[in-house]
C-alpha cells in the first residue's frame, strides 16, 4: 500500500496533541493551511518538506533514520524495528550503554520520535517483527537522503542494474573469485553476480578472512571511504588479476570486485563492502551526546564584560559616524550592485577604520533600515529613520540593531570574500544574501547558551567558557548534521558579528547575549542602560586648540562640535582639533563668531583658552572678505540712476533683481529672460556674454538644496523625533496557537469522511485522487513503485485536445516534470508531461 495513504490514515488517527506537536515541529506543513489529511500526508512527503524536517534531526536520530532506510524495504515487505537496528548503531566505547549495540529503549525512543515527525510509518501488522513496533520510511525519504545514506555506497544489484559494463564486470569478478578459490559461484548475468557477491559478503566469516590477506594499507584506504563511498582513482577501469604481485590496495579491491569502477576516473565502494568494513555498523560511533569542548577556555567576567561593552560603544560610535558621512554624501553603488571598493575606502578613511568595518557597518545600517537605497540615484542615503535612531538613547539604539541583525537575511561576514569568478563580494551586494542566516543566528545563540551551561560547573568562579568557532560549529553540527556546510561557512562570521554587538565578549556569551538568546532583548537593553555611562554635554578645551570629549557626547553637541573642528583619534573619547579651516567651515554654514564662542563657553568644562578665542574671533572677523553667491545673470551699467530706476520699477519684481554695487545688479532669471523682460518693459539692454545659462542651472540646483535642508530642520523642530518604526521581518516558520487551532479544526472537519472510511477506504477508490494536493504526489509515488517493480500502470492522460484517455503503459523513469513510458501495444517509448497525467493506478495481478 502507498505509504502516503498509510501516513494519511495514521495522521487522521492521531490525537490533537500529537498533531499539534507535529505541526509545531514541521510548521511548513500548514503553510498554506491544508484542507484534509491526505493533503497533509502528501505535503509531509514532498521533497522540500522532508528536507526541512531532516535539517532539524540531530546526529543520533539521523543515524537511526538512515539505518531504517538501509534496513527496511517497503516493496520486499521488510520493516525495521529496534532489534533490527541495534547492531547497526554502535555507541562510542565510553558511552554508558552496553558495549557493541545501542540500547533498545533508546532506539525505541528515537523511532517513536521519527514516527511522530511523520518521517516513518508503522509497518502493517504481520510483516516484519511483531514483538515491537516496526517502521517503514515514508515516500521520497530515500531520495531526499541521497544515494549514499550514512556514507554507504549503493548495493551491488543497483550498481549492476545501473550500468551494463558494471554488470559484466561483476560477472567477471565472480568468475575470477571462483577460480582463485573463494567460495563464490561463477555467475553469468549481472543480477546473479550481484546476488552472489552480496551473499558471500553477508557471511560473517568472509570479511575478517579477506582483510587478513589484504595489503597492509587497505584498512587505511577503506577508512577514507568513510564519508563518501565514491573516490577518484586513476585508471579506475583496469581489471587487475587476483594474486598479482605488489598489488596496491586499490588493485586488490578492484580485482575482487570489492571496489566498482563508475567511469575511467571514479570508483564506488558497494554498500555491503562498506558495511563489512565498518563491522556491520551503519553508525560507528553512534554519538548519542553532543560533542563538548574538552578543555573550555575560561574567560574572566571582568574581561568578558569589558570586551562586550567596549564593542557596543565602538559599534554605536562608528555607526553614528557612518550615518554622518552618508548624510554628507550618499554612498554610490556599482552597476552590478553593492558598494564598490573605492567608495568603501573613502568611508573607511573618513571613519578612520578599515574597509572590513565599513562593510559590516553598511550592512548593519541597511539591515536596520537606517540607510536606504534611493532607486532613482542608485545611492544609499540616510532616511528619516536615521534621525529617529540617533535621537534614541544608546541602549535602545543597540536593541534596534540587535533585533535587525537577528532578522537580517544576509551574512555581512561574507563581504570581502573572494568570488570564484574573480573579484570579491561587495558590501550590500547580492552575493552576501543568505536567507538562512536568521535561523543560523538563533541556533548559534542558543548553542552558546547551552555550551555555557554545559561548561558551567567545571570552570573557576567568576569565569565563563569561551568555546572556539570550530567547537561551536561541531556542537551545532551534532544537533543538525544536515546543516554542517552551512554552519562551517556562517558560524565564524556570525560569532564575530555577535562580538561586535556585545553578545559575546572575548568569546564568552555575555549577560546581554544570554538575554537575547532567550528572546528578551528588552531586558538586555535595560542591562545595557545601566552599564553605559550617561551621555555628556561638556568637553574639555585645551590651549593646543583641541577639545576632548571625555566620553560619549550628546549627539547634538557632538554634531555641532564636529562642524567647528576636525575629529581625530579613535576610541571612546573623541578628540577634536580646531583650525582656521574648520572655523571657516562653521562660519560658511551660518554660524557666527559670537555664536561659536557662546556654544564653546556653554559646553566647555573649563574656560575657553585665549588662543582658541583669538582663533575664532580672528577668523570670524575676516570671514567673508571675498564672498560668493549664485545669480542667473547680471546687469552692468555706468549709468547709476538708470539701475536705480530699474530696481525701483515694480514690474521688474519677477526678475529678482538685487544690487551688489552701485553699477552692478544681479537677477535670479537667466540672461535671455532678463533681456526679453527688460525689452518688453521698454528698457534697452544689450547682451554682454553668452554664458548665463550655465550659471542659471547652478543657481537652481543650489537653491533647491537650501530649501531642502530648511524643510527637514523645521520638521524636526516642530514635531520632535518620531519613534522609529523598523520593518523587522517576523520568522515565518513560527506558528501561533491560533494558527494551530485553525489548522486542526479545518483538518478534523474536512477529513471526517476520510477517517470514517478508514485508511483502507481511502485507498479503495484509488481512481479518485484524494484532495487536490495529494493527487499528483500519490500518482508519482505509484509511478515510482511501478518503475521499481517493473509493473504496468493504468494512466489517465489528457491529450492536447482536452480529452481524457486511459491507457495501460509501462513507466520507465520519471523526472524533470516528465514521465517516460513504454507503450506495449504500439511497442514504442513515449514521454508524457506529468501535468497531463490525471491519475495513475497499478494494474493488479498482471
Amino acid at each position: 500500500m502507498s505509504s502516503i495513504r498509510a501516513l494519511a490514515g495514521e495522521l487522521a488517527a492521531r490525537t490533537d496533541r500529537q498533531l499539534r506537536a507535529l505541526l509545531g515541529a514541521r510548521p511548513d506543513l500548514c503553510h498554506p493551511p491544508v484542507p484534509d489529511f491526505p493533503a497533509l500526508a502528501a505535503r509531509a512527503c514532498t521533497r522540500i518538506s522532508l528536507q526541512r524536517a531532516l535539517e532539524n534531526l540531530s546526529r543520533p536520530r539521523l543515524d537511526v533514520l538512515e539505518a531504517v532506510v538501509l534496513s527496511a524495504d517497503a516493496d520486499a515487505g521488510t520493516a525495521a524495528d529496534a532489534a533490527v537496528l541495534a547492531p547497526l548503531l554502535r555507541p562510542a566505547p565510553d558511552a554508558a550503554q552496553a558495549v557493541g549495540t545501542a540500547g533498545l529503549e533508546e532506539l525505541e525512543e528515537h523511532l517513536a520520535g521519527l514516527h511522530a515527525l511523520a518521517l516513518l510509518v508503522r509497518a502493517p501488522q504481520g510483516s516484519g517483527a511483531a514483538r515491537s513496533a516496526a517502521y517503514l520510511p515514508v515516500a521520497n525519504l530515500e531520495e531526499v537522503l541521497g544515494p549514499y545514506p550514512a556514507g554507504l555506497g549503493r548495493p551491488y544489484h543497483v550498481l549492476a542494474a545501473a550500468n551494463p559494463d558494471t554488470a559484466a564486470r561483476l560477472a567477471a569478478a565472480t568468475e575470477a573469485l571462483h577460480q582463485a578459490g573463494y567460495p563464490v559461484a561463477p555467475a553469468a548475468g549481472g543480477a546473479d553476480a550481484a546476488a552472489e557477491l552480496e551473499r558471500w559478503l553477508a557471511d560473517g566469516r568472509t570479511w575478517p578472512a579477506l582483510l587478513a590477506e589484504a595489503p597492509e594499507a587497505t584498512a587505511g584506504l577503506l577508512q577514507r571511504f568513510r564519508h563518501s563511498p565514491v573516490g577518484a582513482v586513476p585508471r579506475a577501469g583496469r581489471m587487475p588479476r587476483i594474486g598479482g604481485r605488489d598489488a596496491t590496495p586499490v588493485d586488490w579491491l578492484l580485482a575482487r570486485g570489492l571496489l566498482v569502477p563508475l567511469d575511467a576516473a571514479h570508483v564506488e565502494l558497494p554498500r555491503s563492502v562498506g558495511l563489512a568494513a565498518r563491522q556491520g555498523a551503519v553508525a560507528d560511533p553512534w554519538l548519542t551526546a553532543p560533542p563538548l569542548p574538552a578543555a573550555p577556555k575560561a574567560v574572566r567576567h571582568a574581561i568578558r564584560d569589558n570586551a562586550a561593552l567596549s564593542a557596543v560603544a565602538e559599534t554605536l560610535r562608528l555607526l553614528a559616524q557612518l550615518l554622518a558621512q552618508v548624510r554628507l554624501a550618499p554612498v554610490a553603488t556599482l552597476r552590478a550592485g553593492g558598494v564598490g571598493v573605492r567608495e568603501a575606502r573613502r568611508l573607511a578613511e573618513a571613519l578612520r577604520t578599515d574597509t572590513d568595518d565599513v562593510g559590516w557597518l553598511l550592512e548593519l545600517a541597511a539591515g536596520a533600515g537606517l540607510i536606504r537605497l534611493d532607486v532613482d540615484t542608485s545611492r544609499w542615503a540616510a532616511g528619516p529613520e536615521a534621525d529617529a535612531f540617533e535621537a534614541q538613547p544608546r541602549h535602545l539604539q543597540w536593541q534596534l540593531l540587535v533585533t535587525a541583525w537577528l532578522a537580517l537575511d544576509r551574512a555581512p561576514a561574507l563581504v570581502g570574500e573572494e568570488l570564484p569568478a574573480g573579484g570579491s563580494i561587495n558590501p550590500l551586494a547580492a552575493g552576501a544574501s543568505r536567507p538562512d542566516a536568521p535561523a543560523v543566528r538563533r541556533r548559534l545563540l542558543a548553542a552558546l547558551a547551552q555550551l555555557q551551561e554545559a561548561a558551567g560547573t567545571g570552570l573557576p568562579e567568576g569565569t565563563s567558557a569561551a568555546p572556539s568557532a570550530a567547537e561551536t560549529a561541531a556542537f551545532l553540527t551534532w544537533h543538525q548534521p544536515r546543516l554542517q556546510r552551512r554552519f562551517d561557512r556562517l558560524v565564524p562570521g556570525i560569532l564575530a558579528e555577535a562580538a561586535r554587538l556585545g553578545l559575546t565578549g572575548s568569546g564568552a556569551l555575555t549577560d546581554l547575549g544570554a538575554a537575547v538568546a532567550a528572546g528578551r532583548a528588552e531586558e538586555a537593553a535595560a542591562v545595557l542602560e545601566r552599564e553605559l555611562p550617561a551621555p555628556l554635554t561638556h568637553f574639555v578645551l585645551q590651549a593646543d586648540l583641541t577639545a576632548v570629549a571625555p566620553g560619549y557626547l550628546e549627539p547634538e553637541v557632538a554634531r555641532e562640535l564636529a562642524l567647528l573642528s576636525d575629529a581625530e583619534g579613535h576610541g571612546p573619547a573623541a578628540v577634536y582639533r580646531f583650525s582656521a579651516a574648520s572655523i571657516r567651515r562653521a562660519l560658511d554654514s551660518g554660524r557666527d563668531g559670537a555664536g561659536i564662542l557662546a556654544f564653546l563657553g556653554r559646553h566647555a568644562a573649563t574656560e575657553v583658552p585665549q588662543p582658541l578665542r583669538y582663533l575664532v574671533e580672528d577668523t570670524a572677523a575676516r570671514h567673508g572678505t571675498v564672498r560668493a553667491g549664485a545669480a542667473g545673470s547680471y546687469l552692468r551699467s555706468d549709468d547709476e540712476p538708470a539701475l536705480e530706476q530699474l530696481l525701483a520699477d515694480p514690474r521688474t519684481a519677477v526678475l529678482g533683481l538685487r544690487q551688489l554695487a552701485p553699477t552692478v545688479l544681479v537677477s535670479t532669471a537667466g540672461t535671455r529672460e532678463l533681456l526679453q523682460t527688460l525689452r518688453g518693459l521698454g528698457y534697452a539692454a544689450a547682451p554682454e556674454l553668452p554664458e548665463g545659462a550655465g550659471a542659471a542651472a547652478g543657481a537652481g540646483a543650489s537653491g533647491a538644496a537650501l530649501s531642502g535642508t530648511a524643510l527637514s530642520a523645521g520638521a524636526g523642530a516642530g514635531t520632535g523625533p518620531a519613534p522609529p518604526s523598523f520593518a523587522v521581518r517576523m520568522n515565518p516558520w513560527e506558528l501561533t496557537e491560533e494558527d494551530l487551532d485553525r489548522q486542526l479544526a479545518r483538518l478534523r472537519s474536512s477529513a471526517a469522511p476520510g477517517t470514517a472510511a478508514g485508511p483502507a477506504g481511502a485507498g479503495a477508490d484509488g481512481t479518485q485522487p484524494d484532495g487536490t494536493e495529494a493527487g499528483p504526489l500519490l500518482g508519482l509515488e505509484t509511478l515510482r513503485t511501478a518503475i521499481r517493480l517493473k509493473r504496468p500502470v493504468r494512466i489517465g492522460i489528457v491529450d492536447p485536445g482536452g480529452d481524457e484517455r486511459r491507457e495501460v503503459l509501462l513507466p520507465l523513469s520519471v523526472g524533470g516534470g516528465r514521465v517516460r513510458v513504454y507503450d506495449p501495444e504500439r511497442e514504442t517509448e513515449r514521454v508524457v508531461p506529468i501535468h497531463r497525467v490525471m491519475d495513475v493506478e497499478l494494474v493488479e495481478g498482471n
Partner: protein
Amino acid sequence: MSNGPLIVQSDKTILLEVDHEQATEARHAIAAFAELERAPEHMHSYRITPLGLWNARAAGLDAEQVLDTLLRYSRFPVPHALLVDIEETMSRYGRLRLEKDPQHGLVLRTSDYPVLEEVMHAKKVKPLLGPRIDAETTVVHSAQRGALKQLLLKLGWPAEDLAGYVDGTPHPIALTESSGKDPAGWQLRPYQKVAAENFWAGGSGVVVLPCGAGKTLVGAAAMATSSTTTLILVTNTVSARQWKDELLRRTTLTAGEVGEYSGALKEVRPVTIATYQVLTMRRGGLYPHLELLNGHDWGLIIYDEVHLLPAPIFRMTADLQARRRLGLTATLVREDGREGEVFSLIGPKRYDAPWKDIEAQGYIAPADCVEVRVDLPRDERVAYAMADDADKYRLCAASETKSAVVEQLAARHAGEQLLVIGQYIDQLDELAARLQAPVIKGDTSVRERQRLFGEFRSGALQTLVVSKVANFSIDLPEASVAIQVSGSFGSRQEEAQRLGRLLRPKADGRAARFYTVVARDTLDQDYAAKRQRFLAEQGYAYTILDAKDAGKA
C-alpha cells in the same frame, strides 16, 4: 564601570585627566609601559607602543599587570582588541635572549625554536650570527650586539639582553652634595635622584628633562654611581666648557681629571668631554677621532642633547652595547623621526616628566608665551604674494614691521635681561643696530661669545641678539624675556630649546616671557602654529595678541 582618570582609545593612545584625584597614581602606573606624547593643561595623552611594552617587560612587568592597570584606572571599557594586542606583543619579548656563554662567548638563545629559525632566515640577521651551537643556541659576533638587537627589534622579536655590561676602568668620583641644611651647599633634587636611579637600574637609557631642570647633575650623579672613567659627548665647545665647570663644582673631580676633546684641544683624561663635531669629522673617508669611543675602556658614556645625535655616532654606538650609555635631552622629538633608533641604541626612556610638573615644584621658572601678530604693510603683502615659494618664508619672517614691534617690546621690558633670537643675519644685524645691542652669530669667535655671555650673565649687558648658534646648551641664567623673530621653519625642538633659555629659575621667582613675532596670513604664521603646538602639548599656553595691543598689554 569605575570612574577612573584614564580613557583608553582604540588607536592605542591613553588620555589621562590631570585634575582627577587618582591622576598621579594612574600616571605612575602607566608610565611604566606608555610614552607620554602630549601634556596640555587638562588631558595628557600617552601612547602604547611595542617598544614601551617591551621595555616594561624588561623592567619586570608582565601583560597581566599591564591589563590590570588599564582596567583598574580606565573610565570606560577598554577596547578588547587592544588588550589582546598588548598580550600578544608582550609575549614576544624574551623569547630570544642574548647571553654570555662561558664556552662560546656571546650567544643568542631561545626557548622557542621556530622563532630562532625565523630570525635566522632574515637576510640581514644572518651575517651578524656565528656558528650554530644547537637547535636553540647560536653564537653572536660580540661586535654586532647592538646591530643585532636593533634588527631583532625591527623584526618584532626583541632580544632580552642578559649579557650585562663591562665595568670599565674604575675611577673614584663623588658628588659634593651637602648633607645638612647648609644654605651655601646644594643637593640633588628629588626628580634628579629618581632619574639617576632609574637609569642605573635599567643599565642604559635616556632621561628626558626640560631645559634648565639640571640635566648635567643627572649626568654627574650617574658618574658618581658608576665611579669609572667616563666619556661625555656634547654638541659644541661652549657646552663642553660648561659641563667641565659644572663637574668641577659639583663633584670631587679636579681640573686635571677632566679633559676636553674638541677642535682646539685633544686631551684624553679619566673624564673626557668630546664634541659631536670632532668625532664626526671626516678625513679621507675615515673618521679619525671616532676611535676615542671604543679605544678606551670607558665605564659610562653620556650623550648630551641626544636628540641631535648625528648618524655616524649612531653607527658607532651600535658597537658599544657592552658599555653603559646615558642619553640626556629636553625633547625627544627629532624632525627626522628617528626617535626609535635613539631608543633602541642608547636605550629606552628611563625618566620623563611633564615640564609643567617640574615647574609646579618650583625647579624651573614659569613662562608666559605670547604670540604677537603683525600685519604686513600693503607693499610687503604684494611682494610676498608674488614671491617664489623658496623666498616666501624669508620675506615674511624678516619683515620690516617686526623690527618696530621688537623695539616696542624691548622698551616695555627695559631693565630686564632680554634675548632677541632670529634666523636671518641681516634681520638680526638690523635689530641689533636698532636696539644698540651686540649680536652673536656663527662667525663670532668663542672667546667673544664667552665674553658677551659673561657680561650678560653679570647683568652688565641687558640685551643680546643671537642667531641659532645659541639654540643649545648655553647657560644664560638670568634671561627673563626672549623675543623670537624668526625660526628655522617649523622646527619643534628649536622652539622648545629657545623657550628653555628662559626656564632656569629666576632669583626673584619671576615668570619668564617668551614672545614670538609672527606675520599674519603668511607661512610664518603656519610655521609658528606648528612650533607652538609642541609647546602647547607640553602645557605651555600661548596668548595671541595683535601688534597694536602688544605695547599696551
